[in-house]
């Protein structure tokens, strides 16, 4: 294995927290979705690295599954974004507080 496992973990953790930071910091709905994508892919990177490390195909199969799920999620999320934009004419999440107790 060319790249050591420790490096893969560092990169993916950094990616994950960058995605998390994006989610927490941004107010735009699309940016939040992007943050989610980054976090999912960080997890996927760990899975691929671990798969190569232990020489088992399971991790790669799992990543394929993850990609399918992400595609579906993005499809639904973008459809909702379009709908919400039509609803409020912007995508600032602070405008959507219909669930306030």
């Amino acid at each position, binding site marked *: 294995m060319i790249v050591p496992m420790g490096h893969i973990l560092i990169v993916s953790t950094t990616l994950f927290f960058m995605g998390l930071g994006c989610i927490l910091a941004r*107010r735009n709905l699309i940016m939040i979705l992007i943050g989610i994508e980054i976090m999912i892919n960080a997890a996927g990177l760990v899975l691929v690295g671990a798969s190569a490390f232990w020489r088992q195909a399971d991790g790669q199969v799992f990543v394929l599954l993850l990609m399918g799920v992400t595609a579906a999620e993005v499809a639904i999320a973008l459809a909702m974004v379009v709908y919400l934009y039509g609803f409020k004419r912007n995508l600032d*999440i602070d405008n959507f*507080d219909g669930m306030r107790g």
Partner: protein
Amino acid sequence: MSRELIFLIPLLPLAGALLNMLGGRFWPRRVTESLAVAAVAGATLAAALLWPLSGGEGTTVELFGWLRAGPLQVPMVLHFDRLAACMALMVTGVSTLIHVYGTGYLHRKEDGVRFFVLLNLFVFAMLTVVLADNLLLLLLGWEGVGFCSYALIGYWYREEENASAGRKAFLVTRCADVFLLAAILWLFQVTGTLSITAINAQAPFLAPGTVTLLALLLLVGASGKSAQLPFMTWLPDAMAGPTPVSALIHAATMVTAGVYLLCRVFPLISQSPTGMAAIAAVGTLTALYAATCALAQRDIKRLLAYSTMSQIGYMFLAVGAGTVTGAMFHLLTHAFFKALLFMAAGGIIHLAAGEMDLFKLGGLARRAPWVFWPLLAGILCLAGIPLTGGFFSKDAILLASFARGGTFYQVLGLLGLLTALLTAMYSFRLIYLVGPARNSIPGEAHHLPSSMLWTLVPLALAGLSGGLLNLPAAWGGNQWLEGVLSAPLIAEGEAGHGLELALGLTAAGLSLAGLLWARWRYAGKPEPRPVGTSGTFFLKGWQADRAIETLLLGPFRAIARFWSTMVDERLLEGGVFLAARSCEGFGQQLRRLTSGRLGHYLTAMAFGLGAIMVWVLLQSI
């Protein structure tokens, strides 16, 4: 003759009641009346025809098992012996006449179907009590009698007074029924059976203390239905019902049930001298109490109600003095003349357009001789004028009491004699107030239906000649009832004819003294005297209602109020409200968490994630 036919006696009135209940509204009034009368008349006929079956040990018929659970066997079983046959004949016979009277009494009044249905049910319930061999079956009839009395006393329930009188009768008798139920359960525990004949057979082998307590419990149970001290307050108020109902309650059904119950379990209670003494004492005191109250009454029906209470007291004295024959003898003659008195009183009230005040009635002798003469016959029996039925039966009881010996029974006998004097006084007071014409004769000429007149005649004849049932040997009689019940009035050789004759003469003298007193006091004196404090005291029945109110109902209400306001409203309801309010307040605080902002939720999620990771880290160290 088939033994199962005995079931016809109670089932015929039940069938009449059911038919009228279901179809009463579809057919005309005449049919309802005829069905009701025919049902009871059929029962009378059945009881008369089946009389031979009651000979010897009697006939016991089991129709089917009702409850079967291990040792508890409650079959539908009737026991038809001489005692039950006498009672059944009297109940059905008198009830038939009262039913016929009722057709005239309720003529052209609304709601007749309900009246006749309840009347038939009343007779059915009473016949169940009379014929049942099983104590639980007896209790069923017993409660049926209580229910029917409630429904019939409050028959005109639209007036609050009547409805509450019905409730009072039901509740007061119910209180005593609890004791009867306790006695029944205890008997089952001790003897392992509920059959009256089996219990009576086992009676000599029971522990004396148990028998005494059982006798006392049975006494209290019987006191409720028979309106003895201290459960007597319902009877005067029961006059709120229609007059045929009063006649039925006072003569044939209801109040005699207690006496009959004691006669039925006589082999048991006679094992306990204490119990017998208590029964005799309760009877005598009630007789005296009710007689003093009757002297002061102004309402004709209340006067008769108190007189019933007094006469039932005599019957209790008879049972206590150990003579079932005496009790049954007086029960039978009393049934005849008391039904007669109530029916005559109903006629008088009808004639006077609902007026019941004795001092406003009058002139009956001239205006309605057909009511007056039967009334006089009934009064003569009640007062115990010699040679009437009441004279012989009352004499038999007093004789039994004196012949039993011992100071206790002598004193009770003397009190009984005093009561006899009072009885004669209030009886003739009634006659002197109602009979002669005085200044005020209220009411326009009401017409009495013929069925309200001719029914009085057989009762008057039966009452007057009732002594023939058990004419004492001293009067040359054959003592038929003693032979039939195979229970001698008094133990052999305890009392000579001398005592019997002396007692008869004394009783005759006392009744004549009562007559003279009433004549001196009331004859030709139209205006009532002002009522003093003692008069009010007796009028209100020794203030028994007020005493019960202060001693029993008042504290009961106070306790109930304490529980309802302090415990229920403040404590329990307060606790519930406190819990509800705190939940609500907590929720109010919690709702602030849901701000509806996505950022807040995501932050919370991130912190949660961090916490989980920290926890996992700490675990792995």
